[in-house]
C-alpha cells in the first residue's frame, strides 16, 4: 500500500465509535421496543374481536338485519361450505386461481407497458409534449366503464378481464414512471456522464434506480387495481371466478356469500402486498426509510 496516508489512517482509527456501544442501553432499547410491539398487536386483536363480536351480537339481538347485512358466523359457515363442498360454479380454489391469474397477468402486462411508455416519454420531451393532452384525456375517462366493451370485443373468457386489468394498471404505473424519470437529479446524470457512462449505462445505473422509487410506490396500488379489473370484468360476464361468485351471491340475496368472497379477495390482496413490500425492501435497500414503513 502507499505510504503517504498515515495521518488519514490514524484519523480513521477513531472513526469507529460504534464498536464500544453500551450493551446495557442497547438491551433496554430492544426490550422497550419489543414491549411496544406486543402491546400494539394485543390492542389490534382486541379491536378485531370487538368489531366482529359487536356485529355478531347486533345480528343476534336483531339490531342488525342479518338478511341484508350478513353476520360473522354465517360468513364463516359459507367459507367452510365453499372450502369443503365447493361452490355452485365448481371448486373454490379454481375460482381463486382464475381471478388471480387474470389479475396477475393484467398486472404484469400493465406494469411492463406502463414502465416502457413512462420511460420513453420521460426521456423524450418532444413525444411527451406531443402525446401529453391525449394521455391526460385518456386518463380522465373512468376506465371501469370499458368492461362491457371488452366483454363484447374479447368474449366471456379471461382475455376481457386481463384487458381491463391492464388498462387500470397501465395509467398508474405510467404516470409514476414518467414522473420518476423526469425527477432524476441532473447532477447525478452529469456525474455519471463525466465518469464515463454511455447511454445504456446512464439508463440502467442512474435513471432506472432513481425512477424505481416512484415505480415501486405505484405497484402497491396497482395490484389492487388489477384485482378490481379482474373482478369487475367477471361481474360483467364470465363463466368462472370470484367476481362471478359475488355476482351470484348478490343475485340470490346471500349477503354472507358476498362478504365471504370479499374476505377471500382481501386475503389475496394482502398476500400480494406482502410480496410487493418484500420486493420494495430488496430493491430500495439504499433508501433511508422504505416507503412502506412511513405509511401504515
Amino acid at each position, binding site marked *: 500500500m502507499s505510504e503517504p496516508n498515515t495521518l488519514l*489512517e490514524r484519523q480513521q482509527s477513531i472513526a469507529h465509535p460504534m464498536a464500544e456501544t453500551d450493551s446495557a442501553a442497547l438491551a433496554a432499547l430492544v426490550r422497550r421496543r419489543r414491549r411496544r410491539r406486543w402491546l400494539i398487536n394485543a390492542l389490534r386483536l382486541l379491536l378485531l374481536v370487538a368489531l366482529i363480536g359487536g356485529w355478531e351480537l347486533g345480528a343476534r339481538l336483531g339490531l342488525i338485519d342479518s338478511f341484508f347485512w350478513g353476520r360473522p358466523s354465517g360468513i364463516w359457515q359459507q367459507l367452510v361450505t365453499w372450502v369443503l363442498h365447493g361452490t355452485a360454479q365448481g371448486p373454490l380454489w379454481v375460482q381463486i386461481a382464475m381471478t388471480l391469474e387474470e389479475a396477475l397477468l393484467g398486472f404484469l402486462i400493465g406494469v411492463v407497458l406502463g414502465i416502457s411508455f413512462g420511460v420513453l416519454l420521460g426521456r423524450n420531451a418532444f413525444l411527451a409534449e406531443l402525446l401529453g393532452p391525449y394521455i391526460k384525456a385518456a386518463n380522465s375517462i373512468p376506465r371501469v366503464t370499458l368492461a362491457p366493451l371488452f366483454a363484447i370485443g374479447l368474449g366471456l373468457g379471461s382475455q376481457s378481464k386481463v384487458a381491463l386489468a391492464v388498462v387500470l394498471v397501465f395509467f398508474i404505473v405510467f404516470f409514476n414512471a414518467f414522473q420518476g424519470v423526469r425527477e432524476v437529479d441532473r447532477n447525478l446524470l*452529469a456525474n*455519471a456522464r463525466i*465518469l464515463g457512462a454511455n447511454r445504456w*449505462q446512464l439508463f440502467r*445505473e442512474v435513471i432506472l434506480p432513481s425512477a424505481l422509487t416512484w415505480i415501486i410506490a405505484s405497484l402497491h396500488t396497482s395490484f389492487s387495481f388489477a384485482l378490481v379489473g379482474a373482478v369487475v370484468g367477471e361481474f360483467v360476464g364470465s363463466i368462472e371466478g370470484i367476481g362471478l361468485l359475488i355476482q351470484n351471491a348478490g343475485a340470490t340475496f346471500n349477503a354472507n356469500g358476498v362478504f365471504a368472497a370479499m374476505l377471500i379477495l382481501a386475503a389475496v390482496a394482502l398476500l400480494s402486498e406482502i410480496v410487493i413490500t418484500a420486493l420494495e425492501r430488496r430493491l430500495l435497500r*439504499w433508501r*433511508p426509510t422504505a416507503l412502506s414503513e412511513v405509511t401504515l
Partner: protein
Amino acid sequence: MQHPQRNLSPASSPTPRSPAQEVPSTRYSKDSTPVIELRQVTKRFLTPGGQTYTALRDLSLSVAPGEFCALIGPTGCGKSTTLSLIAGLDTPSAGSVLVMGEEVHGNDPRIGYVFQTDAVFPWKNVLHNVAAGPLFRGVPRREALERARSWIARVGLAGFEDRYPHQLSGGMRKRVALAQTFINEPQILLMDEPFSALDVQTRTLMENELLQLWSALSASVVFVTHDLEEAIALADRVCVLTAGPATVKGIYTIDLPRPRNVAEIRFDPRFVQLYHDIWEDLRDEVMISYERAKHSS
C-alpha cells in the same frame, strides 16, 4: 505537441485588463499547448422570466499542462458555470472553449469533475460508487473493485465499503466523491469547492493529499474556491473573477516553493504578502456582489 493556432492567439493577450503578473513557473512549461483554453467566452442563461442573464462575459483563461489553477470570486459570479463549460456539460453562447487544443463537444474521458453539490449515487454503496467510473469504462469487475478498495483506503474510508451514502456524514460523502473522481486518473481535474463541507482538520489533510495526488498524476487542475487562503496554499496561479458577469480581474502567480505543507505555509511571510495583494482585488468584487444582493432583496 504542435498546434497551428498557438502563436496566433496566446491565451493572455486578448485580455488587456489582466495585469501582467505572470512569471513563468518552474513546474510547467509555458510554451506547450495550453491544456485548457477559454477564449472570450460569454455565457447567457434564459431566466424563467424570459430574459437573458449573462453569467460570463468575455472570459479568457488558459491552464498549462500540469498547472494548478485556482478560480476565486464572489458567490454567484459564474465559477461553476465556467467549470461546466470546460467539462462539456454546457456550451458557451459566444467564444470558444478548447481542451488539449480542440474545441470541446460532449464529454471528454480525460476530464474528472468533483461537483459542488452532492453527486454520489444514493443507490450504490461506497464501494460501487467509487468503482463506478472504471466499471462504466469497461475495466473488468474484479480489477475495478480492487482499485476502488485501495482508493477508499486512501481517502480514509476503509471499513465503510458497504455503507450507502445516506449512512455517511457530509464530509465522508465528499471523500467518496473525491475517490470516485481520482480513480479514473484524469489528466484534467475540475474541482468545485470540494472541501467546503469538511471540518478544518480533515480539510487540511485532504488538501495535502490532493497536492500529492496532483503531483503523482501530473494532472492540470482548475480548483474553484471561496477561500483565498486555500487558493494560495494550493495553486500555482490564482485567478480572481469579477462579480457576475464574470470576467478575469487579475491573475496572480503563486511563487511559493513546493512541495508545500498546507497547514504550515499559511505562516510564510510571502504567503501573507500574496494574500494581502489578492485580497485588495477580491474585496472590491465581494463588496459589489454583496451590495447587489442587498439591493435585490
